[in-house]
């Protein structure tokens, strides 16, 4: 690495924010390069100068004023956001736009109908195979692309070093 490239790393070097390899590379280079040693000393001196700036003091009553100013501030909440959205957007929608939005929402609900029953039915199905010990599932998929049986794969591994799994057959 040349001096120019190395000097761009001096800041991170004095902050201890380089990798071990980079640190060693810089140290080796510094041993034989007085110009870079000077440069590094300058960067170090700048850091020291800024670091010794005195702590600026606020007015004595700043914290009291801040606390007083919070009296009129309402913490953010989702309910309030929705209320603002309702007032700011939906109430200004024309009847046609409102009808279109409601129809779109209805279609989403209609398309998703019955999904929860299917999930419950499969989860309640009898277990046909279980590993020796179980941890958190890492994947739940269908056993085969065209199968309705669920495959639950766990993080731990069995005797053959294969991940433990359950096969849950479809309820119908």
């Amino acid at each position: 690495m040349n001096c120019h490239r190395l000097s761009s790393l001096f800041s991170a070097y004095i902050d201890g924010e380089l990798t071990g390899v980079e640190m060693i590379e810089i140290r080796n280079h510094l041993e034989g390069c007085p110009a870079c040693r000077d440069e590094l000393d300058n960067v170090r001196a700048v850091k020291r100068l800024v670091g010794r700036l005195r702590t600026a003091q606020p007015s004595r009553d700043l914290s009291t004023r801040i606390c007083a100013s919070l009296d009129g501030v309402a913490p953010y909440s989702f309910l309030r956001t929705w209320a603002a959205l309702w007032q700011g957007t939906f109430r200004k929608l024309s009847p046609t736009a409102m009808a279109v939005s409601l129809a779109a929402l209805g279609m989403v609900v209609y398309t998703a109908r019955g999904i929860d029953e299917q999930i419950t039915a499969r989860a309640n199905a009898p277990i046909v195979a279980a590993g020796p010990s179980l941890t958190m599932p890492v994947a739940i998929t269908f056993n085969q692309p065209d199968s309705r049986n669920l495959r639950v794969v766990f993080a731990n591994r069995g005797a053959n070093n294969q991940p433990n799994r359950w096969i849950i057959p479809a309820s119908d």
Partner: protein
Amino acid sequence: MELIESITDTCRKEERQAFDELVHRHHKQAYNIAYRMTGNHTDAEDLTQEAFIRAFRFFGQYRRELPFENWLYRIMSNVFVDMLRRRPKVQIRSFDQPIQTEDGEATMEIADLAPTPEESVLSNELDARIQSALMTMPEEFRLAVVYADIEGLSYEEIADAMRCSIGTVRSRLHRGRKILRERLKTYASG
């Protein structure tokens, strides 16, 4: 219904009490950072106050397992940038950038700052010169230098506060310190 309102009210009061305590505990540290960012007492107090107000508004989103000051710094950085946008007259221009005058192009020089009574607390000449040099830097370099050298944050924490990558922090610090070295040659030689 009354019971729910009463419970909500109690929670709100407790949250407010907890936040007031955080204000008392961290306002001096926050002000110091704000002062180094803005370079003057009035803007520093405004920035501190605005940052706490915004923090209170979004207090529900604060993850309690993380240090409060780091979260506050992130808010302060945003408030500071907003402040500069709202008041372009305080935007800092690079000293290297020539300015157009009626008599043609001119370059700026650092003013020889004599401490004013308002700045009596920072009347030390060296302090004033360092602060003056900080103010000549682009604000993103200044923020990085202040967080690293005054607050002693790690690059990861600075990246989080400034919402940028660690590589960007590294480059901003390198360039920021280079500018400072030029401005403070007399004091920072070896």
